[in-house]
């Protein structure tokens, strides 16, 4: 379990992280979401004991990270931002170094290294110097060093940054596969990633916690949640006809697409489909909107910026 207790980090008068408190339980994959410079990385650096908080502290499985950083770190696998590694070493040399440093029993070092190399598809490049590798491989080496000791807590700062879509998919699959009975915290500014791997999201901006919810919960905050969009001939005529329905609230037309927002009454989709077939409108697309994460993100972080 991770317990952050009023974490603060200031640089002079600038508050990078401002009174952040939260708890994360085993089985949770928590996504830190926020604009650049929101304090996501700073928070992670404090959780891993790299930065000392200006005030407040965090407990890692009950161990205070400020008072006892070395013991606290034993439970953590950490991928720093940009996945730094020693470029002149080969992949294998580097992973052996990390395995030893992470106190894996000396006899099991070769095994753990071999396993993690397989897991991240690094076999082909294991004897290559890391600095000669592509960005995707470097990122995977970074992930490999973070999970080599099978830690209970994984903290990954932008784990898929710089990967191509296939590699992103692989890494997300890997994170999901490890998620059971672990604590995983990832930071990202890619919205789709949150929906793909996380079961909890914290939106952070200007060092403050603005929302703490499940991805579904966040999406439900969207004004598009349960709205109905359709592409139809003569959208203006259809719009005025449909706005008569009691289930239809606001109506928007954008680039030929008609979006109907729900009122409190249920059954918007049914009412619309009934009206479509009754009037025999030529509909080429019709869908129920789940909600738009980017719109939620924008409205939450913008509201903060304007205060």
């Amino acid at each position: 379990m991770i317990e952050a207790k009023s974490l603060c980090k200031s640089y002079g008068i600038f508050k990078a992280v401002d009174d952040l408190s939260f708890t994360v339980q085993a089985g949770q994959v928590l996504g830190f979401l926020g604009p650049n410079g929101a304090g996501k990385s700073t928070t992670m650096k404090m959780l891993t004991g790299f930065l000392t908080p200006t005030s407040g502290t965090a407990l890692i499985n009950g161990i205070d990270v400020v008072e006892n950083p070395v013991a606290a770190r034993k439970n953590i696998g950490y991928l720093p931002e940009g996945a730094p590694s020693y470029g002149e070493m080969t992949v294998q040399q580097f992973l052996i170094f990390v395995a030893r440093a992470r106190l894996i029993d000396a006899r099991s070092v070769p095994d753990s290294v071999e396993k993690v190399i397989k897991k991240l598809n690094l076999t082909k490049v294991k004897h290559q110097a890391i600095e000669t590798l592509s960005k995707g491989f470097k990122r995977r080496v970074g992930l490999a060093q973070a999970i080599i000791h099978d830690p209970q807590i994984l903290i990954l700062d932008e784990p898929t940054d710089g990967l191509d879509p296939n590699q992103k998919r692989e890494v997300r699959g890997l994170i999901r596969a490890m998620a059971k009975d672990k604590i995983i915290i990832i930071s990202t500014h890619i919205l789709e990633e949150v929906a793909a791997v996380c079961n909890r999201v914290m939106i952070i901006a200007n060092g403050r916690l603005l929302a703490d919810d499940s991805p579904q919960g966040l999406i439900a905050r969207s004004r598009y949640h349960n709205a109905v969009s359709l592409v139809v001939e003569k959208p203006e005529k259809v719009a005025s006809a449909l706005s008569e329905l009691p289930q239809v609230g606001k109506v928007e037309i954008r680039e030929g697409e008609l979006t109907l927002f729900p009122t409190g009454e249920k059954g918007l989709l049914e009412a619309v489909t009934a009206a479509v077939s009754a009037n025999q409108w030529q509909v080429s697309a019709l869908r129920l909107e789940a909600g738009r994460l980017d719109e939620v993100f924008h409205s939450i972080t913008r509201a903060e910026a304007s205060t």
Partner: protein
Amino acid sequence: MNGTINIMKRELTGYFATPVAYVFLIIFLVMTGIFAFYLGNFYERGFADLDPFFRFHPWLYLFLVPAISMRLWAEERRSGTIELLLTLPLTIHQAVLGKFLAAWLFIGLALVLTLPMWITVNYLGSPDNGVILAAYLGSWLMAGGFLAIGSCMSALTRNQVVAFVLSIVVCFMFLLSGLPMVMNLFNGWAPQIVLDGIASLSFLQHFADITKGVIDLRDLVYFALVIGFWLLANVLILEVKKAD
């Protein structure tokens, strides 16, 4: 302890994975040779000893040791690996000591590679090998002092050139503190105890004592204190400013 050794091994692997190690070793051997034979008149003076060889070590170290030490921490900062290193379950003490020991052993290796000098002088005459052994030890200890200063300066910045220049300046002050040109600045107005204090900081004086073949405990303690002091300062600097 294991943590320190692990870091030391990693550093040493790093030296030999890049041209740094080979360039340094070759330059060191060539320079010691040039100094001993041309400036030191190794043959012409007609003594079977290694004094002309050791006499220039302080000046050689002044430039070559900061060249080794400048990357120790500045490079970690520049590449961001400092965040990886210092979030491993290790203390900063272990990291500082591991890196220092690796560099010190490496310079020790450079010294060992000068053994042909010692073989030559034994072939040409019968030198006092005890004195030579003491001088090797003194030279290595002095290199450790330079290195500890350089490591500490390297922790101050992410720029290797800045680290290099700062190290040379501080090393130069330690080197010269016993010479008349420095002492004359203080003579006449500073109390004797200050004069003694400044004079006793000199690398040159302590190194000269050891190369005479007298291994005095005070000289050993002096170098141990210098190394300890600068490494401790190194740890404190890292603790205060890890991230920037």
